[in-house]
């Protein structure tokens, strides 16, 4: 018996939820005031709901189908899984997107698919949804499409024309990990596809000498995702892989997804999932790389096992390992150094830089900038405050570590 639309929605959104990305940002502003039709993007993205797993719901994240010819051990949709299968027609996806959008439940669509028949056949279906939304229905909301490696350049070009962001998952931080868990996927094929997309995205940003824009290609760039904790890769391996991805392919985001237990899991997978805190620390390190001028290598340099500290955030851990650089004079230090002070964020640093041109910044002033005085105190120096020996105290770490907790008896 054919499953109802609601049943299929349940199956195909459950199948898509292990993709962490739900961003609707990075594509600039546009709206339908002049063009007619429906939809707009704000540039920053909007999250329309949050589920109890703490993740936001910004896009309608679904698969076109969860039938897949690949057998990737970590994936709920691998061919050897007994998960229930279903498929949408492109028209159904278009209808669902528009109806949810009209009710202001979503910012747009994140469409992916299991590989059916061939790469080109699958990609063609994804592109058809995006094309219909844009051309038939005048939809100007956000569209994120998954790219299928080895799909023909013509389809990739068309996908880039309609989508705000394209992505292709590297899945595993190391080539060996990918070979082990995803025998049908090739790391080289994924990299080549990313390289091709980067060239097209860069070309899409160019203007000719007359100021004419090149043809639109995925203005929100590309992103990718790595699964954390399924293979033996350390945080250092993962971050080195990220550094290469950001540098080589100009990615907007690398998502880290702590490998999560799935129904009917493969025997190849470890029995226990990694702590969510590990994923959190990786994201913090990623942030430090993207906005704070840290190199990934610095963050793991002080760690013997190549793993980030689970107890302390990576910036604080780095500062404790590099105490010779502290305390920092808030009124004299460079922007680069202020960004390295634990407890000071990008906005606080900008505010300090502006304020100190006109008057001295004192420790107590930081409270007005939403900065935790307790955290910055050992690392900064201001008129009226010097940490003296606090910076060098051997038990400084214990002032920040979370209090020990009694283990559960059961």
């Amino acid at each position, binding site marked *: 018996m054919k499953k109802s639309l609601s049943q299929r929605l349940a199956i195909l959104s459950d199948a898509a939820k292990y993709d962490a990305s739900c961003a609707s940002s990075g594509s600039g502003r546009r709206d339908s005031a002049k063009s007619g039709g429906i939809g707009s993007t704000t540039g920053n993205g909007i999250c329309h709901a949050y589920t109890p797993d703490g993740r936001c719901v910004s896009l309608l994240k679904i698969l076109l189908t969860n039938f897949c010819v690949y057998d990737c051990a970590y994936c709920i949709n691998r061919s050897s899984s007994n998960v229930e299968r279903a498929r949408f027609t492109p028209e159904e996806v278009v209808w669902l997107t528009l109806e949810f959008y*009209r009710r202001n439940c979503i910012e747009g669509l994140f469409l992916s698919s299991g590989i059916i028949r061939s790469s080109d056949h699958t990609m063609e279906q994804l592109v058809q949804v995006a094309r219909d939304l844009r051309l038939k229905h005048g939809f100007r909301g956000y569209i994120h499409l998954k790219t299928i490696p080895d799909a023909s350049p013509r389809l990739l070009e068309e996908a880039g024309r309609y989508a705000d962001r394209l992505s292709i998952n590297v899945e595993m931080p190391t080539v060996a990990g990918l070979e082990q868990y995803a025998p049908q996927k090739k790391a080289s094929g994924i*990299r080549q596809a990313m*390289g091709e997309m980067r060239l097209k995205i860069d070309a899409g940003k160019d203007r000719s000498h007359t100021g004419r824009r090149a043809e639109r290609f995925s203005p929100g760039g590309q992103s990718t995702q790595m699964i954390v904790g399924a293979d033996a890769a350390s945080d250092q391996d993962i971050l080195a892989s990220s550094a290469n991805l950001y540098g080589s392919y100009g990615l907007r985001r690398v998502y880290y997804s702590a490998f999560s237990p799935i129904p009917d899991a493969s025997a190849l997978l470890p029995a226990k999932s990694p702590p969510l805190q590990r994923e959190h620390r990786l994201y913090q390190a990623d942030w430090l790389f993207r906005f704070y001028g840290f190199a990934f290598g610095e963050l793991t340099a002080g760690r013997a096992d190549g793993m980030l500290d689970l107890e302390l955030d990576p910036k604080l851990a780095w500062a404790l390992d590099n105490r010779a650089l502290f305390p920092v004079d808030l009124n004299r230090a460079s922007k680069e150094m202020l960004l390295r002070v634990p407890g000071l964020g990008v906005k606080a640093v900008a505010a300090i830089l502006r*304020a100190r041109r006109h008057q001295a910044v004192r420790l107590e002033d930081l409270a007005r*900038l939403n900065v935790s005085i307790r955290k910055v105190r050992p690392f900064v120096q201001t008129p009226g405050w010097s940490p003296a020996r606090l910076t060098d105290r051997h038990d400084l770490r214990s002032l920040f570590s979370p209090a020990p907790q009694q283990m559960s008896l059961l």
Partner: protein
Amino acid sequence: MTRYVLMVEDSAAFEPWREMARAALQCAIPPEAIDWRIRGGETDLFGQLADTDDGMEALTAAPFAKTVTLRASCIALLRDMLCHSDPGRFALAYRIAWRVQGNPHLLDVATDADIAKARIMVRQNRQDCHKMMAFVRFREQPVQSDEGEGRRRFLAWFEPQHHILERIAPFFSKRFTDMDWMILTPRGSICWNGKDLAYSAEACEQPELDDGFGDLWNTYYASTFNPARVRTKAMRREMPGRYWKDLPETRLIPQLVSGAEARVRAMAEQELQPAPAFHERLRSREERPVEFLPDLPESLDGLAARIRTCTSCPLHCSATQAVVGEGLANARIMVVGEQPGDQEDLAGRPFVGPAGQLLHEALGEAGVDRSALYLTNAVKHFRFRLQGRRRIHQNPHAEHVTACRPWLEQEIALIRPKLIVSLGATALRALDGPGMAMSDVRGTSWTVGTGENAVRRLALAHPSWLLRLGEGAQGEGERQRFVEGLARLRNFPDQSGL
């Protein structure tokens, strides 16, 4: 000191406040002397409704002291902050306007108590706007048959914290252009009919809303939740409880959270099941015989396929792909560069980056037909160092050249060129081994081998070196030398010594 009582409406209206504040500033009335009151809001100490417009009359009667100006950035901050619902906002705004007169940089000092407070208000207003954009939920309303023009009608209810309706209205009209809609709130309403955006300050009653579409949304919400990672604190931080009553999907939260543990346990305890039948069919189709690769490939395509899988040095780990040679398969002239650069690595083709463009330009100037050449590199993978988000080219080491030499030798063996042009020191080393200095041989040619196997060699600079020299006198000179060197290819083989 005379005290002035100024009455303002409890709304976002910036202009009335601006008129009063301008009058007060012009008369040099200090902030302490003004009592800003919200009309109909508060009563005075004796329970009576506060004074009438006496304050404004008194102000106009006060002696004129000076003209005042406010910078646009200050006006913008005050306009943003006056949408807030804090009753103290008018006094704070006036205090800032007053202080800015004596200290024009005040706005930059985010550590100042007044500025910090104003910025918090601005931030809260923005958050309120953002949450309204996120959590307004439209429900469809039946269209009256007499209208019949085909536009669909939607209605929504929302409770904003601050006076943001007018500010947020354009967002909705520019997004939901092709439908009629109305958003009702306790602070007024906004309404769109496809042409006009109407705003009313009149408080609304919460309507009954349901268009039967909520079930589908609830289905999506429940299935996109991952029970293995319950983090309700993160959820509540972003979606505070006060919004829940108008978001129907939040009614599912208690059952999703309470059932999560059991679902995860069930996953862990699930026994391994045999794979479905189609999996076996797929896998059996996959087990093709291993492709036979001969020791020495007989065609360039075969060689390219082997080079692409090369792992004999560590460069393959970070590069995108091996970049193989390109050009005429039986070319008489072969040009060997150093290694692929950033663009070549991404595109998978040699000489497409800036240095390659220079080479192509120079070939054009020298009158050499590019299509008659075979272009390749001494090292097939890109070697680089990461600096932030950029890849900085690094010269390959001797070990990389050595590891890659078999590929170069096989390319030469298949193409059998009569002349090999090396560009730069790496290609020189790859072709002739160590021991030759670039400075000694640049621009010269010689013969390698004898009889049938005799090959002419020509050593030139690498175009990327010319790029680094820039456009000065030296750069121009060297570029000219490079073009002259390439011009010798035009008539190869001739009697000019090549």
